[in-house]
């Protein structure tokens, strides 16, 4: 008989009441949204076996017991990669609270660029934030955990780039979690107005290598007409973290959004990403790299919704699987009836590096317009023995050869990182993980 698992676990009404009591001086609409989300979180069940959105996921790993929802904030010992990176502005959070801040250069601020903690932005730019905050959901199955996020999110980042402004170097956001049972709810909201340009780099880290922790984060990206946004994220939670990340992308006419996620940490990490192409000429580039080790499970759910004609999207998710790790890629391209001349691609590549790893691939299409070019592919295979032999024959040790081939496999995605410093940072992160 299945044991009864509490659908709310450690997140009791008391926890929410305490959280709400601490939200002083913030707009009413923000508090109302929290109450609504809390009710939704309480009312919705944990995923069941009949939930197609959770097919292949290890549902037994998704429990909400044993966490300390009100984690005390701690001073952050910053990981080197987060502090070295040259950037236009930097915000560092530790256990949900702002810990460090490098302010935006005066000239950018003067041109109207906003990089603020969400709590400040709610007060200073309330109407602007309200127009975008939580306006787009991913609708990919983890709504319960997004509701939990909205109910309990303490802070986050609001980035706003006015029309025609370009931010030349990345804006960095770091979220660190520390302590056994700690929970974090990172929130990043990025809005780029017409023809604006910016690159955002977000890092998720844990101070401990294997503390039991919970994360449920949101990063929503809006690109106005002609805007270009790059969003690069590296997730390196502890090896015992249950993680959810909800990402919604909205690209208007001729906008171009690139979202690249590197997945390294977590015990069970679910990432949902939904791109909406709402204006002709919009393009969304959805990229991901995963190194799955030990018994980690990475669960990626994506949706590419083409709502307007002449839009394009390209998805490439590459997974390297070691040990007894599992990955799930479930993607869907939806072409709505009016979205003629859509050009959409979706590809999942799994590199198997162990006899006990498991890769699941569910690449899907739902096409309701006929004048389109849509295709998808999924492959699962091992390192080419001939390539490996070539390297070994040149005296390269086996482990190093494997690493070289792995980076070769990843290069098609890594190569799209727009800043050299960021590229090196991400590479180093992957290398560190491989050395474990």
């Amino acid at each position: 008989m299945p044991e009864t698992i509490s659908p709310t676990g450690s997140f009791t009404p008391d926890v929410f009441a305490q959280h709400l009591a601490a939200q002083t001086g913030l707009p009413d609409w923000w508090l109302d949204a929290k109450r609504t989300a809390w009710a939704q979180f309480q009312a919705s069940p944990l995923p069941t076996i009949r939930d197609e959105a959770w097919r292949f996921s290890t549902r037994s790993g998704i429990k909400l017991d044993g966490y300390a929802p009100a984690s005390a904030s701690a001073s952050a010992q910053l990981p080197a990669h987060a502090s070295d990176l040259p950037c236009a502005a930097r915000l560092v959070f530790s256990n949900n609270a702002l810990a460090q801040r490098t302010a935006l250069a005066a000239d950018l601020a003067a041109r109207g660029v906003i990089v603020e903690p969400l709590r400040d932005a709610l007060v200073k730019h309330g109407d602007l934030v309200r127009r975008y905050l939580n306006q787009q959901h991913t609708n990919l199955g983890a709504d319960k955990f997004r509701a939990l996020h909205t109910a309990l999110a303490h802070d986050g980042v609001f980035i706003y780039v006015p029309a025609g402004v370009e931010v030349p170097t990345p804006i960095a956001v770091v979220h660190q979690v520390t302590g056994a049972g700690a929970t974090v709810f990172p929130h990043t909201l990025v809005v780029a107005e017409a023809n604006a340009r910016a690159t955002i780099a977000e890092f998720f880290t844990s101070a401990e290598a294997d503390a039991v922790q919970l994360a449920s984060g949101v990063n929503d990206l809006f690109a106005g007409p002609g805007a270009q946004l790059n969003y690069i994220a590296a997730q390196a939670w502890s090896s015992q973290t249950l993680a959810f990340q909800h990402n919604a992308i909205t690209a208007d006419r001729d906008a171009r959004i690139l979202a690249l996620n590197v997945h390294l940490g977590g015990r069970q990490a679910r990432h949902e990403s939904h791109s909406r192409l709402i204006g002709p000429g919009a393009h969304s580039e959805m990229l991901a790299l995963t190194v799955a080790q030990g018994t980690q499970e990475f669960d990626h759910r994506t949706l590419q919704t083409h709502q307007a004609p002449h839009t394009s999207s390209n998805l490439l998710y590459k997974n390297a699987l070691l040990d007894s790790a599992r990955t799930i890629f479930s993607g869907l391209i939806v072409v709505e009836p009016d979205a003629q001349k859509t050009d959409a691609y979706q590809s999942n590549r799994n590199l198997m590096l162990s006899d006990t790893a498991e890769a699941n691939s569910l690449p899907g299409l739902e096409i309701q317009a006929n004048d389109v070019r849509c295709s998808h592919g999924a492959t699962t295979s091992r390192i080419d023995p001939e390539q490996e032999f070539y390297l070994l024959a040149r005296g390269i040790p086996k482990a190093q050869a494997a690493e070289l081939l792995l980076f070769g496999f990843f290069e098609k995605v890594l190569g799209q990182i727009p800043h050299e410093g960021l590229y090196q940072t991400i590479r180093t992160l992957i290398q560190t993980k491989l050395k474990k």
Partner: protein
Amino acid sequence: MKPPSEPEATPAAPAPVNPLAGLDQSVSDFSYDVKYDYDAGTGLTPATIDYISSVKKEAAWIREFRHHALKVFESKPLPTHWATKDLETLDFSKIRYYLSQGAQKPKRTWEEVPDDIKRTFERLGVPEHERKFLAGVDAQFDSESAYSSIKEVVAKQGVIFMNSTEALREHPDLFRKWFGKVIPTSDNKFSALNSAVFSGGSFIYVPPGVKVAHPLQAYFRINAENFGQFERTLIIVDEGAELTYMEGCTAPKFSTSTLHSAVVELVAMKDAKIQYITVQNWAPNVYNLVTKRGLAHENAEIKWIDCNIGSHLTMKYPGVVLKGRKARGEVVSIALANDGQHQDTGAKMIHLADETTSTIISKSISVGQGRSTYRGVVRIPKHLKGCKNNTECDALLINTNSRTDTYPAITVQGQTHAAQHEASVSKVSEEMIFYMQQRGLTEAQAMSLAVNGFVNDLVRQFPMEYSVELKRLIDLEMEGSVG
């Protein structure tokens, strides 16, 4: 694509009709007012099962099997969490589960078949075909086989070909050994339903080393309104033997929906080869919910060639369980969905032994508001070495409001396997149509030719008379879809 050089595309003289394939709705859209000797009435209760079992004078274990299956059927929900909600419109209490004219023993010669049933089949051309090339014909009219024969030469080789009701009586040991082993009763709601009320279908046994030179054929027809046809086919091909089997299905158009829910089990022993060809052209109000699966032992090969053109909703995912080393499984699927149709088809490949390989090739065409769906499962577990799967799905959309979906699920464990899946969606290129129109074809002809070209490499895998008929049928379905 090759430019048109043959007059094939111009529908001048009517193409030769192969009515056995049951492809042309204008030929098969007729029904006779048959007086049924046995009628289990509407609705499904344990009494229905007792009635069927008594009429068929079945052994106790079969009756038991049916009753158990009914419980499983009732306990299982409709699979609407992944399948279309359309299934909810099926009313199981309004369906007639068993109808027959007392065909306890299929007639061996054409003359003995009752006149009205004979008229049905004569319109469909069964006897001519037998004379020509067929090794045997087993024609099922509603629940029971009306006529069945097998060419002497095949019988002399020791091949058993009869309807499954008869086989249960005459070869119970052989039947029981594999019956329900490839597709267990509890596999899904509709396999349970079939297990409860099954009647008719083919039973074939091919002894070791026998290569059946000509295809064996069966033809299924629904004649009565609100009727559910639940045939059960079991084919066992022994070591090193080979068999090709073809089935065709039709039904007249009735104003209320009709259900066809078959279970087909194939067993290919070591080194055996089975090729199973289906041309499905049910009337556009038939729910065609079929479970088909083959079990391939060492070095055996099972190939499903599946063509779905008719029915209101088809849900059919032929599968191969690759149980023996180096076993091979293949599914070739063509689906054409027109207005009001949903062809939800695909394939299932379960690898259970080392060095097994599987291939899935699916091509679908959606016309008008038709919807075609590919749904697939490929599973390669970790204790195996060197398995391969290759899946290709191509969809062609003809009109602006046509719809297509692709939902594959691929699970691979371990590093010695290779699996790849590719799918694409496109429309007929305007340049291609323009080129053909330049050479004097009408837009409709050009479109028909292009669509035929899209499926041509698959159609060629059908026996010749089927492929001619398929092409003709595609032309018919394409009529009026352009301009």
